[in-house]
């Protein structure tokens, strides 16, 4: 049962990364590459009817985490207190940037909310990468000082950074050079992903330029991924142990590299949706590879005193997990129906159907 809910949760988070990922990416593209009003409008209309539902995948994942793995929810949300609060504030800024921009027709007003939307998208992409970095690096569970736990074995607290920005320091911080590296990978990946979405869903003049941007950024991404693999041993001496024990898991890294290499053909794609498909493969493959590398851990312990949090020691009782299956299956079917309706109603290029002109 624990394994089932773990797969559900990771599947939902994967959906979130892909869906809200293109929203964040669209925000970053909006910030750096969209200069003309027409391009800006095309970008916001490309995510307009979707972003709210995309964000629900995060909220719903949080709900499933809460009910299926309450100890992990309690431990990680209190331990990562400050960055989570900042993510909340950024989500708020981003949403009001999108919603309020069109309320007043004034260029100053519009540019303020454009910046709010763009900058918070950028920072969110960075923070989510950093968050993933924190999860794989692990934390000082139980807050062990001099070999003694100062708190219950599954609680911890991290400040935003420590003096050395080192992932191996005794007192860890949220931001160190390793987690920051994953944060930067997050930003680059989502920029590519968002650009692909814009190409897919709009006829913007910007699209030709975005193809060049994707092509160049893909080299950066490849370089960053190689660097991260070279330094990964710093946080985990045996990063491939799960893949050696369970060889079918190699499918994830293979998907990741298929996505990455496919994107180099961006200028030759026949259909506008192809790029989005490849960046989706890269995102899902990368996410799955990363979480699979620490399985069954969900939050590793960096000390020898307290054990890592695994899906087995943080899960709810079996009755709750079993009974939850009933409503979850019904809900999931409904969600898929809504999803299909939503993407069928708003299919094709958003500027063709005139979304947003009302």
């Amino acid at each position: 049962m624990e394994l089932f809910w773990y797969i559900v949760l990771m599947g939902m988070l994967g959906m979130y990364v892909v869906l809200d990922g293109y929203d964040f990416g669209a925000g970053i593209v909006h910030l750096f590459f969209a200069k003309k009003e027409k391009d800006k409008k095309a970008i916001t209309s490309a995510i307009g009817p979707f972003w709210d539902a995309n964000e629900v995948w995060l909220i719903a994942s949080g709900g499933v985490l809460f009910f299926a793995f309450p100890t992990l929810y309690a431990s990680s949300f209190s331990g990562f207190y400050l960055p989570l609060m900042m993510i909340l504030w950024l989500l708020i800024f981003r949403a009001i940037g999108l919603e309020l921009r069109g309320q007043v027709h004034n260029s100053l007003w519009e540019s303020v909310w454009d910046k709010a939307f763009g900058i918070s998208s950028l920072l969110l992409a960075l923070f989510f990468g950093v968050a993933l970095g924190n999860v794989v690096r692990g934390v000082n569970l139980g807050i062990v000082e001099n070999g003694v736990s100062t708190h219950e074995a599954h609680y911890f607290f991290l400040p935003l950074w420590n003096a050395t920005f080192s992932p191996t320091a005794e007192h860890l911080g949220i931001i160190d050079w390793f987690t920051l590296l994953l944060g930067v990978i997050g930003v680059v990946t989502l920029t590519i992903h968002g650009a692909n979405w814009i190409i897919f869903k709009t006829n913007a003049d910007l699209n030709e330029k975005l193809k060049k941007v994707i092509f160049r950024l893909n080299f950066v991404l490849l370089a960053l991924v190689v660097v991260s693999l070279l330094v990964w041993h710093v946080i985990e001496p045996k990063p491939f142990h799960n893949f050696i024990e369970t060889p079918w898991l190699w499918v994830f890294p293979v998907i990741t590299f298929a996505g990455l290499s496919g994107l180099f053909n961006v200028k030759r794609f026949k259909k506008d949706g192809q790029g989005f498909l490849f960046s989706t493969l890269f995102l899902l493959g990368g996410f799955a590879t990363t979480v699979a590398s620490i399985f069954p851990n969900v939050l590793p312990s960096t000390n020898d005193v307290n054990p890592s949090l695994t899906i087995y020691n943080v899960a709810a009782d079996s009755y709750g997990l079993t009974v939850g299956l009933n409503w979850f299956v019904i809900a999931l079917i409904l969600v898929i129906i809504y999803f299909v309706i939503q993407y069928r109603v708003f299919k094709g290029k958003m500027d063709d159907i005139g979304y947003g002109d009302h």
Partner: protein
Amino acid sequence: MEDMLFYDRMQFAFTITFHYLFPQLTMGLSLMIVYFKWKFLRTKLDIYNDAAKFWMKIFALNFAMGVVTGIPMEFQFGTNWAKFSELTGGIIGQTLAMEGMFSFFLESSFLGMFLFGEKLLGQKLHFLTGFLVFLGSWASGFLIIATHSWMQHPVGFEIVENGKFVLNNFSALFSNPWLWPSYIHNQLASLITAAFVVAAIGAFYILNNKHSEFGKLFVKTGVLFGLAASVLVAFPTGDWAAKNVVEHQPVTFAAMEGIFETVDGGSEIVLIGQPDTENKKLDNKIAVPNVLSFLTYQRWDAQIKGLNEFDEKDYPTNIPGLYYAYHIMVGLGTVFIALMFVAALQLWRKKLYKTKWILWALVFALPFPYIANTTGWYTAELGRQPWLVYNLMRTADGASPTVSAGNTLFTLLGFVGLYLLLGMLFLILVGKIINKGPETAKV
């Protein structure tokens, strides 16, 4: 430790109070917009569709505010109340996860279609999307109140050796005697807010001599919805809710009503008075003898337990706050019935649109349903204190063990600043929409 708990509580209280200003309008207004759309489909009169479109603009802004201030609520269970989440997550996590899966996906998928898809979808499907958004928002309220009801009156669980609350009866969460009275009471209260807002804007248009046709429609609709909801919120639903408190939380009931001592021969109902918890008495009291006994047990001489019957460590933490919250809610509720009754009477005599003082009263009544809703929730929440899970887990035992007071104060201040900005923007933009007024369909 004391400080930490204080800031944790302040942050939750502040963010939930601000948050709930929006969903209460969302839930009530979605029903009224669905009503306008339905009238339009039935009568084909454009004014109903234009009315729906006007309120959808305010609805869209209000909904967005509700969403962005709602996300911090779900986060805070984990960030600030980690111990509570750890021990009860297997139970309240069920209803909260269901809210995400059943209601948020429904609302968010169809809101975009509802707001921007009228031409794309055609009138019947557009009505349907509006109905689905309404359904989603009411489902959300239901699952939140199911969660709330479990904390007030825990059911369907056992406590295992490590102190964890383990679910053993899923359906009990929904047959909880606390749930249905609270839910219906709350939804009616939410409808009151929407009805008063619609009536207030309508009265403003009539008095202003702008958009008067819409003004009349808004006042009429607001008054009829408002009268029905104001009556039903008090009786029978408010009565049901109070009887739940009497039965399951008698010490809370004594504090709410300001009853310090048990008296023989029936208890008085306190209308006004200031509780003095040091000397255990009410100052400047105005009370009606025996009425409380009658309302509670339908016998004039029934005995009501006073605070003196209970252990002081189980007293609600803030007795005066609880007492005032409850009395403000009940007092305002009574005024709402009176105002809506007089307005409906004038409407029936076809004189309402010319009776200026009632129109002014409707305009100035606008903030009060918000206050009544808020104090109603304060009554429930302060009434539950000092418990998180009534009689089983104290609030002091539920906070996050590793988050310091300084960090919580930092984020509390952040929320205060951010929400001040949000509140101002919301008022400015809604003011702009109201000032512009409804637009008539082009012929």
